[in-house]
Protein backbone atom coordinates (compact mmCIF):
# COMPACT_ATOMS: atom_id res chain seq x y z
CA UNK A 1 0.00 0.00 0.00
CA UNK A 2 1.33 3.37 -0.97
CA UNK A 3 2.04 5.51 2.04
CA UNK A 4 1.56 9.16 1.29
CA UNK A 5 3.38 11.97 2.93
CA UNK A 6 0.21 12.90 4.74
CA UNK A 7 -0.18 9.50 6.31
CA UNK A 8 3.45 9.62 7.37
CA UNK A 9 2.81 13.05 8.82
CA UNK A 10 -0.21 11.76 10.69
CA UNK A 11 1.85 8.95 12.15
CA UNK A 12 4.58 11.36 13.18
CA UNK A 13 1.99 13.58 14.79
CA UNK A 14 0.56 10.72 16.79
CA UNK A 15 4.03 9.75 17.97
CA UNK A 16 4.81 13.35 18.87
CA UNK A 17 1.61 13.72 20.87
CA UNK A 18 2.20 10.48 22.73
CA UNK A 19 5.72 11.54 23.51
CA UNK A 20 4.32 14.75 24.99
CA UNK A 21 5.13 16.92 22.06
CA UNK A 22 8.78 16.24 22.36
CA UNK A 23 9.44 17.37 18.86
CA UNK A 24 6.96 20.00 17.87
CA UNK A 25 9.49 21.61 15.68
CA UNK A 26 10.15 18.34 13.97
CA UNK A 27 6.44 17.97 13.40
CA UNK A 28 6.23 21.47 12.16
CA UNK A 29 8.95 20.89 9.64
CA UNK A 30 8.41 17.29 8.82
CA UNK A 31 4.64 17.17 8.73
CA UNK A 32 2.66 18.44 5.86
CA UNK A 33 0.71 20.90 7.91
CA UNK A 34 3.71 22.91 9.02
CA UNK A 35 4.46 23.15 5.36
CA UNK A 36 1.02 24.43 4.83
CA UNK A 37 0.26 23.83 1.25
CA UNK A 38 2.49 20.82 0.86
CA UNK A 39 -0.11 18.78 2.66
CA UNK A 40 -2.51 18.85 -0.26
CA UNK A 41 -1.54 16.43 -2.98
CA UNK A 42 -4.24 17.26 -5.43
CA UNK A 43 -2.94 18.80 -8.55
CA UNK A 44 -5.89 20.97 -9.28
CA UNK A 45 -8.69 22.53 -7.40
CA UNK A 46 -11.99 21.33 -8.73
CA UNK A 47 -14.56 23.97 -9.41
CA UNK A 48 -17.71 23.77 -7.37
CA UNK A 49 -21.16 25.07 -7.91
CA UNK A 50 -20.03 28.43 -6.56
CA UNK A 51 -17.40 30.26 -8.54
CA UNK A 52 -14.99 32.30 -6.55
CA UNK A 53 -13.75 35.62 -7.87
CA UNK A 54 -10.75 35.51 -5.61
CA UNK A 55 -7.84 33.27 -6.30
CA UNK A 56 -8.70 29.78 -5.21
CA UNK A 57 -5.89 27.85 -3.70
CA UNK A 58 -3.84 26.03 -6.29
CA UNK A 59 -3.27 22.75 -4.61
CA UNK A 60 0.04 21.22 -5.59
CA UNK A 61 2.36 18.74 -4.07
CA UNK A 62 5.44 20.43 -2.70
CA UNK A 63 8.38 18.31 -1.69
CA UNK A 64 10.10 21.04 0.28
CA UNK A 65 10.02 19.98 3.91
CA UNK A 66 10.49 23.30 5.65
CA UNK A 67 7.47 25.57 5.29
CA UNK A 68 6.51 28.07 7.95
CA UNK A 69 2.76 28.30 7.40
CA UNK A 70 -0.01 25.94 8.40
CA UNK A 71 -1.39 24.46 11.56
CA UNK A 72 1.24 23.73 14.17
CA UNK A 73 1.13 22.12 17.57
CA UNK A 74 3.77 23.97 19.53
CA UNK A 75 3.44 21.93 22.70
CA UNK A 76 3.80 25.03 24.82
CA UNK A 77 0.19 25.02 25.96
CA UNK A 78 0.04 28.74 25.54
CA UNK A 79 -3.24 28.63 23.69
CA UNK A 80 -6.01 30.15 25.71
CA UNK A 81 -9.38 31.61 25.06
CA UNK A 82 -8.80 35.25 24.33
CA UNK A 83 -12.24 36.36 23.27
CA UNK A 84 -15.57 35.77 24.95
CA UNK A 85 -16.69 33.84 21.87
CA UNK A 86 -13.74 31.50 22.19
CA UNK A 87 -14.23 30.96 25.91
CA UNK A 88 -17.96 30.32 25.52
CA UNK A 89 -17.49 27.86 22.67
CA UNK A 90 -14.62 26.03 24.35
CA UNK A 91 -16.61 25.76 27.59
CA UNK A 92 -19.64 24.40 25.75
CA UNK A 93 -17.59 21.83 23.87
CA UNK A 94 -15.62 20.84 26.95
CA UNK A 95 -18.79 20.24 28.93
CA UNK A 96 -20.28 18.26 26.06
CA UNK A 97 -17.15 16.15 25.79
CA UNK A 98 -17.21 15.51 29.52
CA UNK A 99 -20.85 14.47 29.40
CA UNK A 100 -20.14 12.21 26.42
CA UNK A 101 -17.27 10.56 28.24
CA UNK A 102 -19.38 10.04 31.33
CA UNK A 103 -22.23 8.57 29.32
CA UNK A 104 -19.83 6.25 27.56
CA UNK A 105 -18.41 5.03 30.86
CA UNK A 106 -21.85 4.49 32.28
CA UNK A 107 -22.96 2.66 29.17
CA UNK A 108 -19.92 0.42 29.16
CA UNK A 109 -20.39 -0.27 32.85
CA UNK A 110 -23.98 -1.31 32.29
CA UNK A 111 -22.90 -3.54 29.45
CA UNK A 112 -24.95 -1.73 26.86
CA UNK A 113 -24.29 -2.74 23.31
CA UNK A 114 -24.36 0.88 22.24
CA UNK A 115 -21.34 1.92 24.26
CA UNK A 116 -19.16 2.00 21.21
CA UNK A 117 -21.16 4.58 19.41
CA UNK A 118 -21.35 7.02 22.28
CA UNK A 119 -17.81 8.17 21.91
CA UNK A 120 -17.77 8.86 18.25
CA UNK A 121 -17.15 12.54 18.87
CA UNK A 122 -16.34 14.91 16.08
CA UNK A 123 -14.58 12.49 13.81
CA UNK A 124 -17.62 11.31 12.02
CA UNK A 125 -19.17 13.81 9.77
CA UNK A 126 -22.48 12.12 10.24
CA UNK A 127 -23.38 8.57 10.84
CA UNK A 128 -26.78 7.17 10.55
CA UNK A 129 -27.99 3.78 11.57
CA UNK A 130 -28.45 1.69 8.54
CA UNK A 131 -32.02 1.66 7.61
CA UNK A 132 -33.58 -1.64 8.13
CA UNK A 133 -36.18 -2.72 5.80
CA UNK A 134 -39.39 -2.87 7.65
CA UNK A 135 -41.10 -6.12 7.19
CA UNK A 136 -43.48 -5.88 4.39
CA UNK A 137 -46.90 -5.52 5.79
CA UNK A 138 -48.92 -8.56 5.21
CA UNK A 139 -52.51 -8.25 4.58
CA UNK A 140 -55.17 -10.38 3.12
CA UNK A 141 -56.49 -9.21 -0.10
CA UNK A 142 -60.18 -8.87 0.08
CA UNK A 143 -61.96 -11.65 -1.54
CA UNK A 144 -64.98 -11.15 -3.56
CA UNK A 145 -67.52 -13.74 -4.26
CA UNK A 146 -68.74 -13.96 -7.73
CA UNK A 147 -72.07 -12.26 -8.11
CA UNK A 148 -75.01 -14.43 -8.71
CA UNK A 149 -75.86 -14.72 -12.35
CA UNK A 150 -78.46 -12.20 -13.30
CA UNK A 151 -80.53 -12.10 -16.38
CA UNK A 152 -78.78 -10.21 -19.08
CA UNK A 153 -80.42 -8.15 -21.66
CA UNK A 154 -78.48 -7.76 -24.83
CA UNK A 155 -79.49 -5.43 -27.55
CA UNK A 156 -77.79 -5.89 -30.86
CA UNK A 157 -77.96 -3.09 -33.34
CA UNK A 158 -78.01 -4.27 -36.88
CA UNK A 159 -77.86 -0.84 -38.49
CA UNK A 160 -74.97 -0.27 -40.81
CA UNK A 161 -74.23 3.21 -39.41
CA UNK A 162 -72.64 3.15 -35.91
CA UNK A 163 -72.15 6.88 -35.39
CA UNK A 164 -71.06 8.29 -32.00
CA UNK A 165 -71.95 6.12 -29.07
CA UNK A 166 -73.42 8.97 -27.05
CA UNK A 167 -75.44 10.17 -29.94
CA UNK A 168 -76.63 6.70 -30.50
CA UNK A 169 -77.60 6.39 -26.86
CA UNK A 170 -79.50 9.63 -27.01
CA UNK A 171 -81.08 9.03 -30.32
CA UNK A 172 -81.89 5.38 -30.17
CA UNK A 173 -85.29 6.02 -28.69
CA UNK A 174 -86.40 8.01 -31.67
CA UNK A 175 -84.58 6.02 -34.30
CA UNK A 176 -86.37 2.96 -35.50
CA UNK A 177 -84.79 -0.10 -34.10
CA UNK A 178 -83.89 -2.49 -36.74
CA UNK A 179 -82.91 -5.43 -34.63
CA UNK A 180 -83.56 -6.08 -31.00
CA UNK A 181 -82.47 -9.23 -29.37
CA UNK A 182 -83.20 -9.97 -25.78
CA UNK A 183 -81.43 -12.79 -24.11
CA UNK A 184 -82.10 -13.86 -20.58
CA UNK A 185 -80.50 -16.59 -18.55
CA UNK A 186 -83.92 -18.12 -17.60
CA UNK A 187 -86.35 -18.09 -19.13
CA UNK A 188 -84.92 -17.26 -22.50
CA UNK A 189 -86.86 -15.56 -25.19
CA UNK A 190 -84.96 -14.77 -28.30
CA UNK A 191 -86.04 -12.32 -30.90
CA UNK A 192 -84.27 -12.16 -34.14
CA UNK A 193 -84.53 -9.92 -37.15
CA UNK A 194 -84.82 -10.94 -40.72
CA UNK A 195 -81.50 -12.62 -40.41
CA UNK A 196 -82.36 -14.15 -37.08
CA UNK A 197 -79.81 -16.87 -36.95
CA UNK A 198 -76.85 -14.61 -37.59
CA UNK A 199 -78.04 -12.07 -35.02
CA UNK A 200 -78.51 -14.71 -32.46
CA UNK A 201 -75.08 -16.06 -33.09
CA UNK A 202 -73.61 -12.56 -32.96
CA UNK A 203 -75.04 -12.05 -29.50
CA UNK A 204 -73.92 -15.45 -28.43
CA UNK A 205 -70.31 -14.81 -29.41
CA UNK A 206 -69.65 -12.12 -26.81
CA UNK A 207 -71.26 -13.43 -23.68
CA UNK A 208 -71.22 -16.65 -21.77
CA UNK A 209 -74.73 -16.27 -20.41
CA UNK A 210 -76.29 -16.56 -23.81
CA UNK A 211 -74.42 -19.78 -24.25
CA UNK A 212 -75.93 -21.09 -21.08
CA UNK A 213 -79.32 -20.02 -22.12
CA UNK A 214 -78.88 -21.18 -25.67
CA UNK A 215 -80.55 -24.49 -25.19
CA UNK A 216 -83.70 -23.27 -23.55
CA UNK A 217 -83.64 -20.19 -25.76
CA UNK A 218 -83.58 -22.21 -28.92
CA UNK A 219 -86.57 -24.18 -27.83
CA UNK A 220 -88.45 -21.00 -27.21
CA UNK A 221 -87.66 -19.44 -30.55
CA UNK A 222 -90.66 -20.93 -32.24
CA UNK A 223 -92.99 -19.66 -29.60
CA UNK A 224 -91.36 -16.32 -29.24
CA UNK A 225 -92.18 -14.86 -32.57
CA UNK A 226 -95.78 -14.34 -31.68
CA UNK A 227 -94.71 -12.30 -28.67
CA UNK A 228 -92.27 -10.13 -30.58
CA UNK A 229 -94.27 -6.91 -30.62
CA UNK A 230 -95.11 -7.37 -26.97
CA UNK A 231 -91.51 -7.96 -26.06
CA UNK A 232 -90.39 -4.98 -28.03
CA UNK A 233 -92.71 -2.81 -26.10
CA UNK A 234 -91.70 -4.51 -22.88
CA UNK A 235 -87.93 -4.24 -23.55
CA UNK A 236 -87.85 -0.65 -24.72
CA UNK A 237 -88.44 1.18 -21.40
CA UNK A 238 -85.76 -0.62 -19.32
CA UNK A 239 -83.12 -0.15 -21.97
CA UNK A 240 -83.80 3.49 -22.48
CA UNK A 241 -83.89 4.10 -18.74
CA UNK A 242 -80.52 2.51 -18.30
CA UNK A 243 -79.13 4.54 -21.10
CA UNK A 244 -80.55 7.69 -19.63
CA UNK A 245 -78.92 6.92 -16.32
CA UNK A 246 -75.65 6.27 -18.04
CA UNK A 247 -75.92 9.51 -19.94
CA UNK A 248 -76.69 11.44 -16.79
CA UNK A 249 -73.81 9.84 -14.98
CA UNK A 250 -71.48 10.67 -17.80
CA UNK A 251 -72.71 14.22 -17.87
CA UNK A 252 -72.33 14.67 -14.14
CA UNK A 253 -68.93 13.04 -14.24
CA UNK A 254 -67.82 15.30 -17.05
CA UNK A 255 -69.03 18.35 -15.20
CA UNK A 256 -67.26 17.24 -12.06
CA UNK A 257 -64.09 16.61 -13.99
CA UNK A 258 -64.33 20.04 -15.54
CA UNK A 259 -64.81 21.70 -12.16
CA UNK A 260 -61.89 19.78 -10.63
CA UNK A 261 -59.68 20.69 -13.57
CA UNK A 262 -60.56 24.34 -13.18
CA UNK A 263 -59.79 24.29 -9.47
CA UNK A 264 -56.50 22.52 -10.06
CA UNK A 265 -55.51 25.03 -12.68
CA UNK A 266 -56.41 27.90 -10.39
CA UNK A 267 -54.44 26.35 -7.52
CA UNK A 268 -51.43 25.84 -9.77
CA UNK A 269 -51.64 29.43 -10.93
CA UNK A 270 -51.79 30.69 -7.36
CA UNK A 271 -48.91 28.42 -6.35
CA UNK A 272 -46.66 30.24 -8.81
CA UNK A 273 -47.06 33.43 -6.80
CA UNK A 274 -47.16 31.87 -3.35
CA UNK A 275 -44.04 32.52 -1.34
CA UNK A 276 -42.46 29.54 0.35
CA UNK A 277 -40.39 29.59 3.48
CA UNK A 278 -37.48 27.23 3.01
CA UNK A 279 -35.36 28.36 5.92
CA UNK A 280 -35.94 29.66 9.43
CA UNK A 281 -33.35 30.95 11.83
Amino acid at each position, binding site marked *: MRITRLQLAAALTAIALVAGGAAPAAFAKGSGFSGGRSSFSSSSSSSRSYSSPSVSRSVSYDASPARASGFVSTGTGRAAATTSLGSTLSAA*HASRDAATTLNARQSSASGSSNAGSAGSGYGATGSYAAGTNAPAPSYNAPTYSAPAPVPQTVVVHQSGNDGFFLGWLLGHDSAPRETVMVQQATPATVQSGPDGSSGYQGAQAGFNAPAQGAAPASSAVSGGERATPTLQQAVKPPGSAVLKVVVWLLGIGGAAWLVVSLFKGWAARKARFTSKTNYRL
Partner: protein
Amino acid sequence: MGLFNLANRVASKKLDDLAREHAHQTGRVDTGLPFGARVGGLIQLVLADFALLEGSLLYTPSAAQQAIVAASRLHIDADEDLSIYRLYTSTGVDRDGQGAFLQIMTGKDRPQDIRDLAYYQFLFREYPTTPEEQDAYLGNGYGLGADHYDMDSDELGMISHVAKRDGRAQALLAGAEAIGFDRDAAGGDYIRPWRASERRIDDALGAKGVEKTLSFMQYVRELPAGLAQSTTGAHGPIERLWVAFEHVTSMDGRPASAAWVDYFAGVAIDPAHLKVF
Protein backbone atom coordinates in the same frame (compact mmCIF):
# COMPACT_ATOMS: atom_id res chain seq x y z
CA MET B 1 -50.58 36.73 -33.52
CA GLY B 2 -54.02 35.34 -34.06
CA LEU B 3 -57.05 36.61 -32.31
CA PHE B 4 -57.38 33.45 -30.30
CA ASN B 5 -53.79 33.68 -29.08
CA LEU B 6 -54.26 37.30 -28.19
CA ALA B 7 -57.39 36.58 -26.22
CA ASN B 8 -55.63 33.69 -24.53
CA ARG B 9 -52.73 35.85 -23.45
CA VAL B 10 -54.96 38.63 -22.18
CA ALA B 11 -57.03 36.18 -20.17
CA SER B 12 -53.91 34.53 -18.81
CA LYS B 13 -52.52 37.90 -17.74
CA LYS B 14 -55.76 38.78 -15.98
CA LEU B 15 -55.84 35.45 -14.22
CA ASP B 16 -52.20 35.86 -13.15
CA ASP B 17 -52.96 39.25 -11.62
CA LEU B 18 -55.93 37.80 -9.81
CA ALA B 19 -53.92 34.84 -8.55
CA ARG B 20 -51.16 37.14 -7.33
CA GLU B 21 -53.67 39.07 -5.25
CA HIS B 22 -55.14 35.96 -3.70
CA ALA B 23 -51.93 33.96 -3.28
CA HIS B 24 -50.97 33.21 0.28
CA GLN B 25 -47.92 35.13 1.43
CA THR B 26 -45.91 33.85 4.33
CA GLY B 27 -44.74 36.20 7.01
CA ARG B 28 -41.25 37.44 7.67
CA VAL B 29 -38.88 35.05 9.34
CA ASP B 30 -36.08 37.53 10.08
CA THR B 31 -37.54 38.28 13.50
CA GLY B 32 -35.93 38.10 16.89
CA LEU B 33 -32.52 39.21 15.63
CA PRO B 34 -30.19 41.24 17.83
CA PHE B 35 -30.52 44.99 17.65
CA GLY B 36 -33.90 44.47 15.98
CA ALA B 37 -32.08 43.90 12.70
CA ARG B 38 -33.94 42.73 9.61
CA VAL B 39 -32.92 41.68 6.15
CA GLY B 40 -32.93 44.85 4.10
CA GLY B 41 -32.03 47.04 7.06
CA LEU B 42 -28.82 48.96 7.57
CA ILE B 43 -25.89 48.73 9.92
CA GLN B 44 -23.58 51.64 10.57
CA LEU B 45 -20.00 51.08 11.63
CA VAL B 46 -17.29 53.48 12.63
CA LEU B 47 -14.74 53.37 9.83
CA ALA B 48 -12.04 54.58 12.16
CA ASP B 49 -12.19 51.23 13.95
CA PHE B 50 -10.73 49.69 10.79
CA ALA B 51 -8.60 52.55 9.50
CA LEU B 52 -6.59 52.77 12.71
CA LEU B 53 -5.66 49.09 12.72
CA GLU B 54 -1.95 48.56 12.21
CA GLY B 55 -0.80 45.62 10.14
CA SER B 56 -4.23 44.06 9.96
CA LEU B 57 -5.59 41.70 7.33
CA LEU B 58 -8.80 43.68 7.37
CA TYR B 59 -9.58 46.47 4.97
CA THR B 60 -11.59 49.57 5.69
CA PRO B 61 -15.15 49.18 4.39
CA SER B 62 -16.11 51.41 1.52
CA ALA B 63 -18.99 52.98 3.40
CA ALA B 64 -19.99 53.36 7.00
CA GLN B 65 -23.59 52.34 6.31
CA GLN B 66 -24.06 48.95 4.78
CA ALA B 67 -27.20 47.08 3.92
CA ILE B 68 -28.03 43.81 5.60
CA VAL B 69 -28.38 41.43 2.66
CA ALA B 70 -28.74 38.23 4.66
CA ALA B 71 -28.98 36.93 8.19
CA SER B 72 -28.08 33.60 9.68
CA ARG B 73 -27.84 31.75 12.90
CA LEU B 74 -25.19 29.30 14.00
CA HIS B 75 -26.46 26.25 15.80
CA ILE B 76 -23.55 24.93 17.80
CA ASP B 77 -23.67 21.15 18.16
CA ALA B 78 -22.35 21.27 21.70
CA ASP B 79 -24.97 23.71 22.92
CA GLU B 80 -28.16 24.35 21.02
CA ASP B 81 -29.05 27.25 23.25
CA LEU B 82 -26.09 29.34 22.22
CA SER B 83 -27.33 32.29 20.23
CA ILE B 84 -24.83 33.30 17.58
CA TYR B 85 -26.21 35.38 14.76
CA ARG B 86 -24.66 36.80 11.64
CA LEU B 87 -25.79 39.88 9.78
CA TYR B 88 -24.27 39.71 6.32
CA THR B 89 -23.34 42.96 4.61
CA SER B 90 -22.16 41.00 1.58
CA THR B 91 -22.67 37.38 0.55
CA GLY B 92 -20.31 37.49 -2.41
CA VAL B 93 -20.84 36.81 -6.06
CA ASP B 94 -23.78 34.44 -6.60
CA ARG B 95 -24.30 34.46 -2.84
CA ASP B 96 -21.40 32.08 -2.39
CA GLY B 97 -20.49 33.40 1.05
CA GLN B 98 -17.32 35.27 0.12
CA GLY B 99 -18.40 38.48 1.74
CA ALA B 100 -18.51 40.09 5.15
CA PHE B 101 -20.72 39.79 8.18
CA LEU B 102 -21.28 41.08 11.66
CA GLN B 103 -21.27 38.20 14.13
CA ILE B 104 -23.18 38.64 17.36
CA MET B 105 -23.33 36.30 20.32
CA THR B 106 -26.10 37.03 22.77
CA GLY B 107 -27.35 35.54 25.97
CA LYS B 108 -29.74 32.66 25.82
CA ASP B 109 -33.14 34.00 24.87
CA ARG B 110 -31.91 37.50 25.63
CA PRO B 111 -31.04 39.19 22.34
CA GLN B 112 -30.36 42.45 24.10
CA ASP B 113 -27.57 40.85 26.13
CA ILE B 114 -24.63 41.19 23.75
CA ARG B 115 -21.79 38.87 24.76
CA ASP B 116 -19.56 39.14 21.72
CA LEU B 117 -19.63 41.44 18.71
CA ALA B 118 -17.16 41.25 15.84
CA TYR B 119 -16.98 42.07 12.15
CA TYR B 120 -15.48 39.50 9.79
CA GLN B 121 -14.24 39.84 6.22
CA PHE B 122 -13.53 37.07 3.73
CA LEU B 123 -9.85 36.37 3.02
CA PHE B 124 -9.54 33.34 0.78
CA ARG B 125 -10.98 29.92 0.11
CA GLU B 126 -9.48 26.46 -0.28
CA TYR B 127 -10.98 23.39 -1.90
CA PRO B 128 -9.69 20.19 -0.27
CA THR B 129 -10.73 17.54 -2.73
CA THR B 130 -9.12 14.37 -1.40
CA PRO B 131 -10.02 12.61 1.84
CA GLU B 132 -6.53 13.24 3.17
CA GLU B 133 -6.89 16.96 2.62
CA GLN B 134 -10.30 17.02 4.27
CA ASP B 135 -9.18 14.96 7.25
CA ALA B 136 -7.08 17.89 8.39
CA TYR B 137 -10.24 19.89 9.06
CA LEU B 138 -12.52 17.23 10.48
CA GLY B 139 -10.93 16.54 13.83
CA ASN B 140 -8.58 13.68 13.09
CA GLY B 141 -5.84 14.77 15.42
CA TYR B 142 -4.01 17.21 13.22
CA GLY B 143 -4.60 20.33 11.22
CA LEU B 144 -7.48 22.54 12.24
CA GLY B 145 -7.59 22.56 16.02
CA ALA B 146 -3.84 22.77 16.55
CA ASP B 147 -2.84 25.47 18.99
CA HIS B 148 -1.04 27.60 16.44
CA TYR B 149 -1.49 28.64 12.85
CA ASP B 150 0.99 30.33 10.54
CA MET B 151 -0.05 32.25 7.47
CA ASP B 152 2.80 32.60 5.02
CA SER B 153 3.32 34.79 1.98
CA ASP B 154 1.61 32.34 -0.35
CA GLU B 155 -1.60 32.55 1.59
CA LEU B 156 -1.30 36.28 1.91
CA GLY B 157 -1.01 36.42 -1.84
CA MET B 158 -4.35 34.68 -2.12
CA ILE B 159 -6.12 37.49 -0.29
CA SER B 160 -7.51 39.66 -3.05
CA HIS B 161 -7.24 43.02 -1.34
CA VAL B 162 -3.66 42.20 -0.25
CA ALA B 163 -2.55 40.91 -3.63
CA LYS B 164 -3.85 44.02 -5.36
CA ARG B 165 -1.49 46.28 -3.43
CA ASP B 166 2.17 45.84 -4.21
CA GLY B 167 4.28 45.19 -1.20
CA ARG B 168 1.30 44.80 1.09
CA ALA B 169 2.05 41.17 1.83
CA GLN B 170 5.65 41.94 2.76
CA ALA B 171 4.49 44.84 4.91
CA LEU B 172 2.15 42.52 6.79
CA LEU B 173 4.89 39.97 7.33
CA ALA B 174 7.24 42.70 8.61
CA GLY B 175 10.30 40.64 7.91
CA ALA B 176 8.94 37.42 9.39
CA GLU B 177 8.32 34.26 7.43
CA ALA B 178 4.71 34.04 8.45
CA ILE B 179 2.03 35.70 10.51
CA GLY B 180 1.34 33.64 13.61
CA PHE B 181 -2.05 33.09 15.20
CA ASP B 182 -2.83 31.31 18.44
CA ARG B 183 -5.90 29.25 18.96
CA ASP B 184 -8.73 31.04 20.73
CA ALA B 185 -9.47 28.11 23.01
CA ALA B 186 -7.64 26.37 25.79
CA GLY B 187 -7.02 22.66 25.73
CA GLY B 188 -3.48 21.70 24.91
CA ASP B 189 -1.73 21.13 21.62
CA TYR B 190 -4.78 19.98 19.77
CA ILE B 191 -8.52 20.03 20.24
CA ARG B 192 -11.12 18.87 17.82
CA PRO B 193 -12.68 21.64 15.78
CA TRP B 194 -16.02 22.93 16.84
CA ARG B 195 -18.99 21.83 14.82
CA ALA B 196 -22.08 23.82 13.97
CA SER B 197 -24.74 24.20 11.37
CA GLU B 198 -25.63 27.50 9.80
CA ARG B 199 -28.94 28.43 8.26
CA ARG B 200 -28.82 31.63 6.31
CA ILE B 201 -31.80 33.47 4.87
CA ASP B 202 -31.18 35.76 1.92
CA ASP B 203 -34.59 37.38 1.97
CA ALA B 204 -37.13 38.31 4.59
CA LEU B 205 -39.47 35.42 3.78
CA GLY B 206 -36.86 32.70 4.01
CA ALA B 207 -37.48 31.49 0.47
CA LYS B 208 -33.87 31.98 -0.55
CA GLY B 209 -30.98 30.93 1.59
CA VAL B 210 -28.28 28.44 2.30
CA GLU B 211 -27.91 25.66 4.82
CA LYS B 212 -24.50 24.25 5.66
CA THR B 213 -22.51 22.51 8.32
CA LEU B 214 -19.25 23.85 9.68
CA SER B 215 -16.17 22.44 11.30
CA PHE B 216 -14.41 25.54 12.52
CA MET B 217 -11.90 27.03 14.87
CA GLN B 218 -10.94 30.60 15.71
CA TYR B 219 -7.40 31.85 16.03
CA VAL B 220 -6.28 35.24 17.34
CA ARG B 221 -3.25 37.47 17.34
CA GLU B 222 -2.47 40.78 18.89
CA LEU B 223 -1.99 43.59 16.43
CA PRO B 224 0.67 46.22 16.94
CA ALA B 225 -0.53 48.91 19.24
CA GLY B 226 -1.90 51.87 17.38
CA LEU B 227 -1.67 55.51 18.33
CA ALA B 228 -4.49 55.28 20.84
CA GLN B 229 -3.07 52.22 22.53
CA SER B 230 0.52 53.44 22.54
CA THR B 231 -0.32 56.59 24.45
CA THR B 232 -2.19 54.73 27.16
CA GLY B 233 0.07 51.75 27.27
CA ALA B 234 -2.74 49.38 26.43
CA HIS B 235 -2.27 46.31 24.29
CA GLY B 236 -3.05 46.39 20.62
CA PRO B 237 -6.39 45.21 19.37
CA ILE B 238 -7.00 41.51 18.85
CA GLU B 239 -7.39 40.30 15.30
CA ARG B 240 -9.34 37.11 14.77
CA LEU B 241 -8.90 34.43 12.15
CA TRP B 242 -11.96 32.26 11.57
CA VAL B 243 -11.13 29.03 9.74
CA ALA B 244 -14.11 26.90 8.78
CA PHE B 245 -14.56 23.77 6.73
CA GLU B 246 -18.02 24.29 5.30
CA HIS B 247 -20.26 21.74 3.68
CA VAL B 248 -23.19 23.25 1.87
CA THR B 249 -26.21 20.96 1.90
CA SER B 250 -28.92 23.03 0.27
CA MET B 251 -29.49 26.34 -1.41
CA ASP B 252 -32.83 28.04 -2.02
CA GLY B 253 -34.60 24.96 -0.81
CA ARG B 254 -32.93 22.62 -3.27
CA PRO B 255 -30.09 20.20 -2.58
CA ALA B 256 -26.79 21.75 -3.54
CA SER B 257 -23.72 19.97 -2.28
CA ALA B 258 -20.45 21.86 -2.06
CA ALA B 259 -17.50 21.96 0.31
CA TRP B 260 -14.63 24.31 0.93
CA VAL B 261 -12.48 25.88 3.63
CA ASP B 262 -13.04 29.58 4.23
CA TYR B 263 -10.72 31.96 6.02
CA PHE B 264 -12.17 35.11 7.56
CA ALA B 265 -10.40 37.90 9.41
CA GLY B 266 -12.28 39.75 12.10
CA VAL B 267 -12.03 42.36 14.77
CA ALA B 268 -14.15 43.05 17.80
CA ILE B 269 -16.58 45.95 17.54
CA ASP B 270 -17.66 48.12 20.41
CA PRO B 271 -21.47 47.88 20.67
CA ALA B 272 -21.53 51.61 21.27
CA HIS B 273 -19.98 52.10 17.82
CA LEU B 274 -22.70 50.14 16.06
CA LYS B 275 -26.05 51.31 14.88
CA VAL B 276 -28.66 49.13 13.28
CA PHE B 277 -31.59 50.58 11.37
